């Protein structure tokens, strides 16, 4: 089911999420709602559970077709994700569906190894880079109760979001 995406100042966005642990019906339902919400939202490349009001460590990413993509794993469900290895910070400008009107410059790792449970209950390893690495980090931050506003490289690197074309 497509869920409304919560926006600032909703407190759940700033709250670290609980681990899922055992994959149960509820976790699977949350994952499905996240997929539905990502597919339903225009241009969305990822949604994390706190954005739909659920404080569980689940997020989904799909950067298929993005012009800055190198690695691309298609539609990915990450349950209890953990960063195994990461390297190479690079600054890029991000916005977030939960932070309307603003964008900010954020340094992110350019390459990462992430391990997470999938919908099948198995551990999966993802080697991601470039834009997919940025999207993973943005969504993983949501699970820790962090927004891009907590990561901007300097206080004067936050901007009003522009209207395009």
């Amino acid at each position, binding site marked *: 089911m497509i869920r409304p995406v919560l926006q600032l100042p909703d407190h759940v966005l700033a709250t670290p999420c609980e681990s899922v642990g055992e994959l149960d019906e509820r976790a699977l339902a949350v994952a499905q709602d996240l997929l539905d919400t990502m597919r339903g939202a225009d*241009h*969305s*490349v*990822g949604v994390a559970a706190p954005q739909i009001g659920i404080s569980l460590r689940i997020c989904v990413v799909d950067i298929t077709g*993005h012009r*800055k993509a190198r690695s691309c794993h298609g539609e990915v469900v990450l349950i209890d994700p953990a960063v195994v290895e990461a390297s190479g910070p690079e600054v*890029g*400008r*991000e*916005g*977030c*569906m939960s932070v309307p009107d603003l*964008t900010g410059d954020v340094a992110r790792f350019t390459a990462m190894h992430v391990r997470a449970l999938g919908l099948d209950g198995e551990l999966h390893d993802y080697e991601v880079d470039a*834009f997919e690495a*940025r*999207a993973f980090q*943005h*969504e993983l931050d949501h699970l820790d109760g962090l927004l*891009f506003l907590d990561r901007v490289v300097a206080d*004067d690197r936050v*901007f*009003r*979001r*522009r*209207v*395009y*074309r």
Partner: protein
Amino acid sequence: MTLVPHVAVTALGADRPGIVAAVTGVLVRHGGNLEDTAMTNLGGHFAMMLVVEVPDSETAEALEASLVEEVGGQGLTVAVRPIVEAPADAPTGTPWAVSLYGADRPGIVHRVAQKLADHGANIVDLSTRVIGPGPEHAYVLLLELSLPVTSDGDRLGIELTALADELGVEIHLRPDDADVL
């Protein structure tokens, strides 16, 4: 939509601890609510620019008088003006960023800004810094602009490069769009 009264507050003075607390304290006591603000240290002076929502009963003149009385003695120059016009729409067009650096000389900002204006570009953010001890100090200019869709970014880039050669500085123009994640 009813127009909520707003004022623009500017304050400038030699930097020291407590300026923001003092100025905003006066604004809060007058029922003001800060909206967009920019405050920064400019060459040892602390500069504040604030858009403040104020109660209907408040006037810019009265607020300025209070600020002058309460913080003017601390070396701050303060001005308050009513904002009568409706806020401009968010800039449309494509976002670009310009970075420039090189030996300082008079006229760099003006020449760059004039070139941008000639192309119909709207500067949405600009900051400059003087770096290093004089007399051979360097100058850094960073700005963000919105270019009308009818303007040609590549053409602007070529003309800025020619201007940079003339000014003896380095200049770069790059697309500056954000990814919504």
